[in-house]
């Protein structure tokens, strides 16, 4: 087991147990009424969901950075997260979100549509540039439709619902979301695992990778499926949570041998840990309304991104990568 995995496997259970007690109300079994109910019905599913969503985003970020051979890649670039969000927005628009199952299903449908479109446009050649451009095109198209839906919202309530949901949060989630996201995320991480050797081959560039037996179309199919399952299910239960996929592989990379294959599992574990800790933190913060998780992570993520860019510009990229 690598150093990173061992470290994370120690940290994660500790943080998990701690997060069950942390919140606006610090649980004290002897004093808090209904402590077991709070844990079993509120905090346990929420903590699990944080780990699941974070694991999906972290592993997707690691796989995409490996695929694009670029430390600045983020799974959000590929249009699947915006596609899922557009699906969710549609469910608000049509008023279906009142039914608890329909919102995530709409989001998953949106993610699937984005995946299908991505595969359709880029799938023929397996070329990386076309794939990236297609993803960015889908992302901006989905973004435009979301803005359209917000500006044409049938009523102010729907508009505020949409805007709030888009910020990303794990508030008031239940076991239902866990049952939905857990198997899909696990399947997605399995797709990245299947792609790990091809991602390693890409260290030497596209031509060398193909000369070693990497099939670009097959690799792309694993990645589209993997990002669709992890990010699509993540957005469908938690909304848009940015920057996890970007930051986590960076934090983990120095503790691995830097091969993309060595980064997938530690990034899943670290992503789970980061979202879990961030979600516990927003619960503890003494604000009138709970800070949205998506906002909190972006508040951490954006300065980090800037720091990363500056560090690369100074030519320390060798150490970073």
């Amino acid at each position, binding site marked *: 087991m690598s150093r990173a995995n061992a470290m994370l496997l120690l940290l994660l259970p500790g943080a998990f147990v701690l997060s069950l007690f942390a919140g606006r109300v610090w649980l004290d079994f002897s004093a808090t009424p209904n402590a077991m109910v709070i844990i079993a019905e509120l905090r346990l599913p929420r903590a699990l969901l944080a780990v699941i969503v974070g694991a999906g985003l972290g592993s997707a970020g690691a796989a995409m950075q*490996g695929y694009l*051979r670029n430390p600045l890649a983020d799974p959000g670039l590929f249009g699947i997260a915006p596609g899922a969000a557009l699906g969710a927005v549609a469910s608000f628009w049509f008023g279906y979100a009142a039914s608890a199952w329909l919102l995530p299903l709409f989001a998953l449908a949106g993610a699937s549509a984005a995946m299908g479109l991505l595969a359709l446009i880029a799938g023929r050649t397996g070329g990386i540039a076309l794939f990236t451009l297609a993803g960015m095109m889908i992302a901006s198209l989905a973004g435009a439709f979301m803005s359209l839906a917000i500006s044409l919202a049938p009523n102010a309530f729907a508009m505020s619902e949409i805007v709030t949901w888009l910020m990303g949060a794990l508030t008031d989630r239940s076991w239902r979301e866990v049952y939905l996201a857990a198997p899909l995320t696990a399947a997605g991480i399995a797709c990245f695992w299947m792609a790990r*050797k091809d991602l*390693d*081959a*890409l*260290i*030497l*560039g596209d*031509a*060398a990778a*193909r*000369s*070693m*037996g*990497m*099939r670009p179309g097959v690799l792309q199919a694993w990645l589209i499926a993997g990002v669709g399952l992890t990010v699509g299910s993540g957005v469908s239960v938690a909304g848009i949570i940015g920057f996890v996929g970007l930051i986590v592989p960076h934090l983990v990379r120095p503790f691995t*041998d*830097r*091969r*993309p294959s060595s980064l997938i599992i530690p990034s899943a574990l670290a992503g789970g840990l980061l979202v879990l800790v961030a979600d516990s933190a927003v619960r503890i913060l003494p604000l009138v309304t709970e800070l949205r998780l998506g906002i909190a992570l972006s508040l951490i993520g954006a300065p980090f991104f800037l720091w990363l860019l500056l560090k690369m510009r100074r030519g320390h990229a*060798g*150490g970073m*990568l």
Partner: protein
Amino acid sequence: MSLGADNLGIRGRLEPLSVMFEEGQVTAICGPNGAGKSTLLAALAGLIETASGKAVLDGEDLKNRLPRERAQHIGYLPQDGETAWDVSVRNLVSLGRLPYGDEAPEMVDAALEALGLKAHANRPVSTLSGGEKARALLARVLAGQPRWVLADEPLAALDIGHQQALLSYLRQTAAAGTGVIMVLHDLSLAMNHADRVLVLDRGKLAADGAPENALATGVVERVWNVSANWAGSPGERALMVRPPGSA
């Protein structure tokens, strides 16, 4: 045991040509910029679609081989030599085992040893000098023990000392029975170190044979459009070049 081109053509870049290569030989592909050297090499590695004809491995169309199986026979060293992530030399070299899906430490060790990289095995590739990196990239190819090594300008970025060192590694590889085919820009290196030279000119085969014949003064003057003549004795030839018309 053969690799070759059977009426192989690439639209706009290479006119259909047929040529067979031999194991245990160093073959240099020479020609001016844009002559189709790298294209021919990539087609022989099965990396580009052919417009006509086929690349042939052991009498069979290369396209009929699974990519991984093909990769077990043919090692390809691209020109750019990029490494996306700062992995260790050992991990870089062990990528050569990907076609087999194993990490075969003894093969990786042998490749490191053969190229004098044993002491550098745990260094990150970003800390290597240009010469060391070129050796590491070649070691990656050799770790897969291919029967064919196809190298696209492996000497381009190296100083003359490292050029000679890498050439001697390539010669050793050929002496062990591997077929080495490489694109070379430096005609003197091709003249002195190759067993056979192919000259391409604007997508056509202009000459093919022993270096003394394929790179004869007349061929060089015609294909590269310079006035030139060879100085020195066989094995230590140097090309004296003057601009066209100045002689």
